[in-house]
């Protein structure tokens, strides 16, 4: 899949010939990753500008891999920002992947990261460009394998269970991980079905699910547009006390099977995120 589109060949040592190499690869359907290698200074920008501009003008889901960029100058920043604008002008998304700390700090102090988000993980980057950004995306696309929109109903709970079946095969999950994912989803969605209250004028009948699979863990996010409701506030009640369905047995189980369970209110949305070890 990878094909060199730049000057090709081996990377020239810095200082001998200040060159910047560029190649592109398709890392997911419709998602292009541009790999830059070398110094993103005035000379480097010259060598890649034609190729980079062409990519930015033709792609709408673009990941710019900076992991092998050792230096970035203001010319380089301008090139990256103008590429991001070209992508955004066609309703596309561009993100940076894996910059070294020195490069990342330049991106942050210059405010470039406000225009182009930075990710350290490729899967997260793919999700971000595919779905329009992890932070401001209220309705994940249903067509992507790692996101799903379900009805806030018992039928939705069943659909979430079927999604776990698919994910278990797709991600080759261990029984333990599959169990934890199934339990967390079932408890969290059931909780929304039972306790969340709609806000007039907002679509409260949907729940957006997103799963980001990392090598060591699964990151699960549930988002709805109901009234502000933090499920984690219900105290854990053991089985002996909770038989009515009103207590926190389900959320207690969820906490036992996940780590880093957090709830936040993001604009009109409730967002529950948790990670499951794999």
């Amino acid at each position, binding site marked *: 899949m990878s094909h060199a589109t730049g000057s090709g060949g081996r990377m020239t040592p810095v200082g001998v010939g200040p060159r910047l190499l560029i190649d592109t690869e398709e890392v997911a359907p419709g998602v292009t990753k541009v790999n830059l290698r070398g110094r993103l200074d005035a000379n480097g920008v010259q060598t890649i500008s034609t190729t980079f501009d062409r990519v930015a003008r033709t792609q709408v889901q673009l990941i710019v891999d900076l992991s092998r960029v050792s230096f970035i100058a203001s010319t380089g920043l301008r090139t990256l920002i103008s590429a991001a604008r070209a992508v955004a002008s066609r309703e596309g998304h561009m993100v940076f992947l894996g910059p070294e700390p020195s490069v990342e700090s330049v991106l942050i102090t210059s405010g470039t990261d406000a225009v182009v988000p930075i990710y350290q993980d490729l899967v997260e980057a793919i999700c971000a460009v595919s779905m329009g950004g992890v932070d401001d995306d209220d309705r994940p696309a249903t067509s992507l394998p790692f996101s799903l929109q379900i009805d806030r109903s*018992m039928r939705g709970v069943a659909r979430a269970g079927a999604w776990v079946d698919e994910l278990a095969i797709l991600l080759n999950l261990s029984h333990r991980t599959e169990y934890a994912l199934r339990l967390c989803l079932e408890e969290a969605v059931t909780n929304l079905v039972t306790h969340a209250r709609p806000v007039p004028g907002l679509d409260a009948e949907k729940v957006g699910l997103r799963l980001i699979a990392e090598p060591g863990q699964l990151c699960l996010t549930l988002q709805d547009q109901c009234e502000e409701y933090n499920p984690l506030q219900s105290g854990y009640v053991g089985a002996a006390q909770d038989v009515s369905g009103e207590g926190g047995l389900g959320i207690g189980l969820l906490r036992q099977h996940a780590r880093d369970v957090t709830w936040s209110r993001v604009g009109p949305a409730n967002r529950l995120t948790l990670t499951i070890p794999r």
Partner: protein
Amino acid sequence: MRLETEEVAPGVTKANLTGRLDIGGSQEIDLAFNVLAGSQRALIVDLSQVDFIASLGLRLLIVGARTVQRKGGRMILLRPPIAVEAVLVSSGTDNVVGILRNLDEAIHAVSG
């Protein structure tokens, strides 16, 4: 989700559950299981073919056990798979209804 019953000793009924005790599965057998718990005094619930349980499934078992116990009867859970047993224990369900791995012991336990 399937629920089948058999008499494993005089007056001792074993309920064999097969499938996932998730929300859908729990709802499918909810009525039949409650009827069973309401009519038996010595009940063994065989969980060996249950590969998943969440809070609604736990409630089903807990309510069933309480129903049996209120009549002076006894209920035992038999042979849950490891993952299911972990949830039974971590939720404290095993404080309400005992777990055994051997059928003869279970028959003895519920026969009183």
